[in-house]
């Protein structure tokens, strides 16, 4: 392992691997000729500071390389042992762990969740009774996404599972695909309930250890053990800069794993081998196949069609998304959070796996451009300049966004002022699911705080609508509207999009101590 840590360049990587390099590795080099230069060029185009890439083929690592730097403004290069967040690629670990419990007869995919977590409750009694483990793992619950239950709230996993009962239905039960991190948190808590161990220990003992994923962990708090780690980056005010790691501890079963491309290559080989790694079986072929089988259909957008040649079907399995790509089945997942984006893609018919980890957040589709390049190389259909095609799509999306912002600006009514003096908008605002919001006057401006962490300044827009400029600039701006009752008192704050409408429940008074939340 220490030898691998020294690898700087891909071609050397193959040479260094020496004994591990199978005879076909020479052929792979041929197939992958030009990849190196392509990645480097594309990284400039996309302004991605650091990237690590691994390719496994026929149960061997055939390519592994780091590119660029771990943090802008430093000379610390990314190599194949650099630790990145893999975010939602974690979901497949949760699903695989569940499959192990299925093998042991401790759960069945179609067990009702309430049989294992009696406190689990969703918006409707009948649905509560019917929800199965299969539903938790396949994004078909029909409730709102609700990421701000966990993002920046400090709620524990148990508290999050409790709060799921307040999430509102947005589609019929099992009628549509609706991505839900909260259901994966629930699945993780179900694993904990069944095993008597926390989810993190299950993943470590049952997956990391047997696969030899020695540079992988389930919490950002463990990153201090790894000096060789990538810093997350976001473009803020036109400048690409490092941002802090986000703790995903409360959302862990949906996205908290940190890993390296070498470790993830082991994971990819294990998945492609149907649950076996170097002669040792960790999960039955059947249980793993169930995680790779489609459960919930995903609508295919025009953009997806453009960027996924030969796609006719897209679906979610358990912790994996799957589709057809040029006549083959592609099993994959992306991951993303503040300052980081990643991708794993498996093509079982070609016994091929690709892992791409990057340390840039928004405005980054580079990892998928590289995925397509590699897949096409193995399918012998190269010819698309995927980086350029993805870049064009992103530019179009940015133009759309700009148009939308212009439209919003145009619709702004000038010469209005708030109905009330600013101090009368202050107060404690509450929502059953999302907790406590606080609007206060700070230096003459309204400031909104939701939970312990999310904070934004409210600038007057028109009438009783304010524009919130978030401290986490990458959350984007948002228009929020206060509602007054007949007596002229503020009663509600409508936050479109991610949050529901908060009720104003009290004036602000100075308080210390007491429980963390009301």
């Amino acid at each position: 392992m220490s030898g691998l840590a020294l690898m700087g360049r891909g071609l050397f990587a193959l040479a260094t691997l020496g004994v591990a390099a199978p005879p076909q590795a020479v052929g792979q080099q041929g197939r992958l000729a030009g990849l190196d230069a392509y990645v480097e060029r594309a990284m400039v185009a996309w302004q991605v500071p650091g990237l690590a890439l691994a390719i496994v083929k026929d149960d061997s690592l055939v390519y592994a390389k780091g590119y660029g730097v771990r943090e802008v403004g430093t000379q610390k290069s990314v190599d194949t042992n650099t630790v990145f967040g893999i975010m939602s690629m974690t979901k497949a670990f949760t699903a695989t762990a569940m499959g192990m419990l299925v093998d042991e007869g401790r759960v069945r995919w179609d067990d009702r969740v309430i049989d294992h977590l009696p406190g689990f409750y969703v918006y409707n009694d009948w649905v509560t009774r019917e929800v199965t483990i299969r539903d938790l793992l396949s994004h078909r619950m029909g409730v709102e996404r609700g990421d701000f239950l966990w993002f920046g709230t400090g709620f524990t996993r148990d508290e999050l599972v409790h709060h799921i009962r307040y999430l509102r239905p947005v589609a019929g039960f099992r009628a549509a695909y609706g991505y839900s991190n909260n259901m994966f948190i629930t699945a993780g808590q179900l694993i904990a309930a069944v095993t008597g161990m926390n989810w993190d220990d299950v993943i470590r003992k049952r997956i990391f250890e047997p696969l030899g994923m020695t540079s992988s962990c389930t919490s950002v708090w463990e990153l201090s053990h790894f000096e060789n780690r990538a810093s997350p980056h976001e473009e803020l005010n036109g400048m690409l800069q490092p941002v802090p790691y986000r703790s995903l501890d409360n959302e862990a079963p949906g996205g908290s794993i940190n890993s390296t491309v070498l470790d993830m290559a082991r994971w990819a080989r294990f998945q492609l081998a149907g649950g076996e790694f170097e002669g040792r079986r960790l999960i039955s072929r059947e249980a793993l196949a169930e995680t790779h089988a489609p459960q919930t259909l995903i609508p295919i957008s025009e953009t997806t069609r453009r960027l996924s040649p030969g796609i006719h079907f897209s679906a979610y399995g358990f912790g994996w998304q799957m589709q057809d790509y040029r006549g083959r089945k592609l099993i994959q997942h992306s991951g993303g959070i503040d300052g980081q984006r990643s991708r794993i893609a498996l093509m079982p018919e070609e016994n091929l796996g690709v892992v791409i980890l990057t340390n840039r957040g928004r405005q980054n589709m580079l990892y998928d451009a590289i995925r397509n390049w590699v897949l096409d190389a193995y399918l012998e259909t190269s010819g698309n300049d995927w980086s350029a095609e993805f870049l064009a799509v992103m530019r179009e999306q940015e133009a759309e966004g700009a148009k939308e912002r212009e439209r919003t600006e145009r619709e702004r009514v000038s010469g209005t002022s708030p109905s009330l003096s600013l101090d009368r908008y202050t107060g404690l605002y509450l929502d059953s699911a999302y907790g406590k919001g606080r609007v206060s006057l700070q230096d003459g401006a309204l400031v909104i705080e939701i939970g312990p962490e999310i904070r934004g300044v409210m600038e007057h827009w028109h009438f009783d609508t304010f524009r919130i400029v978030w401290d986490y600039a990458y959350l984007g701006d948002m228009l929020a509207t206060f509602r007054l009752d007949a007596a002229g008192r503020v009663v509600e704050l409508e936050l479109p999009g991610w949050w529901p409408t908060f009720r104003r429940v009290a004036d602000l008074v100075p308080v210390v101590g007491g429980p963390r939340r009301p």
Partner: protein
Amino acid sequence: MKYRRVVGWLSMLVLSLVAVAPLSAQLPDGLDDYIEKVRTDWNVVGIAVAVVKDDSLVYAKGFGLRELGKPERVDEHTLFAIGSNSKAFTAAGIGILVDEGRMSWDDRVVEHLPWFQLYDPYVTREITVRDLLSHRSGLGRRGDANWYATDFSREEVVRRIRHLEPNSSFRSRAGYQNTMFLAAGLVTDAVTGVTWDEFIKSRIFQPLGMSRSNTSTLDLASDDNVASPHQPFDGTVKVIPYRNLDNVAPAGSINSSVWEMTHWLRAMLGEGEFAGERLLSDSVVREVHTPNIIYPMGPQTRKLFPSMHFSTYGLGWGLRDYQGRLVAGHTGGIDGMLSQVTLVPEEELGVVVLTNTSNRGSFNAITWYIVDSYLGVPTRDWNALFLQLNQEAEKAAAEQQRKREEGRVKATSPSLPLSEYVGTYDNDMYGTMTVSEEDGKLVCRRHTAFVGDLEHWHYDTFVAKWRDLSMSAGPGTEFTFTLGSNGKVTGVTVQGVDEFMRVEKPEPEGTEQ
């Protein structure tokens, strides 16, 4: 357009690797001989096949006889029952109403049929028209006994479905459901004020020039080119009567010819347009060809179609990927009539196969042979493959029957004298059935068509031998009577249907203890 280019390129790739494949997409050589061989190998009396490509009819031909023992030959205009291929018409009918803004796919069914009710109140409230058309109600393939050969009306069949306990949780998995398609037809009635039949005729058949196509076996009498259904009885093929499907029509009652079906195929492949006239919007065509539920792929399907990764159902259409293309299709089957419709939109290819003899796969052998040829991929010996599957299925059925015979306990007799089994039996879902004693034997009767002679099997189990010709082909239906603690018959479980409870004879007044 780009899409097509990519696909074309892919097929080129395959071509370059396999020299034996034909060099251009076309009808396979010797198709006539192939179909005739399939017909003979499968012992099918008559087959009609048509192919459309790039909005043109490129093949339409009949093989064999319309009816065994009569000289008239099947041609491309011969009418057959298309069975469940009717489902796509029902979905298109709803699509027309969606285009007109009179309803939407996601309307709740109870908004249109306020009396509609399923087993669970929540499901009753939530179920949508989309659910009706995509086999995801959770009821599974059950409830067919309520319409098949019964006297119930369409509405009665749908009304009774409330008694059917779901066999999987709502929308959790696919379960083929004819009664839900019937309900979709009733939604059409409710929205348009005319019957489903009139609507399909005036809004689909007429604009497509399908003037001889109809929605009832009762309409067949006036046509002089109609295929008769056939069924093998211990290996001997015989003519059987048409099964009337009026009470489940939107799920399967259409009769048509391959000639007229090609108009329908061209309309679907033409994104809703046929001969310059628009029948459906392209968005409706896309919608019916967009998957709503996953169908699990068994080992047999995987073996037959290694390039298939997804098997799903849209709205009245099965949707799969095959050799990198989307294939939309359906099979149809009712007493003595088997059919298959297949579309490969990226190739603008459509194939329809209609047959008039019960069989497990002659249509498959023909369809995939033609599709492979147009895709330019190396074909397989589909006829041999499906014949082998058929043999295996027949062997399995024979084995099952052998085991059943083996499991029969000899030298038992019914617990009670036959007269004690006589009575009326009732089931909320399936209605009333009587058992009477006639000439020293028990006879069961349900609706007009179900008359069965109950032959003693063992203990209190009898086997009903149906007098209806097409039903008489099978091994019969097991009737197991149950006795209460008082030693009297309390009910009977009918194999494959449900338990019917004996209706107590009213006791004479004053005898109550």
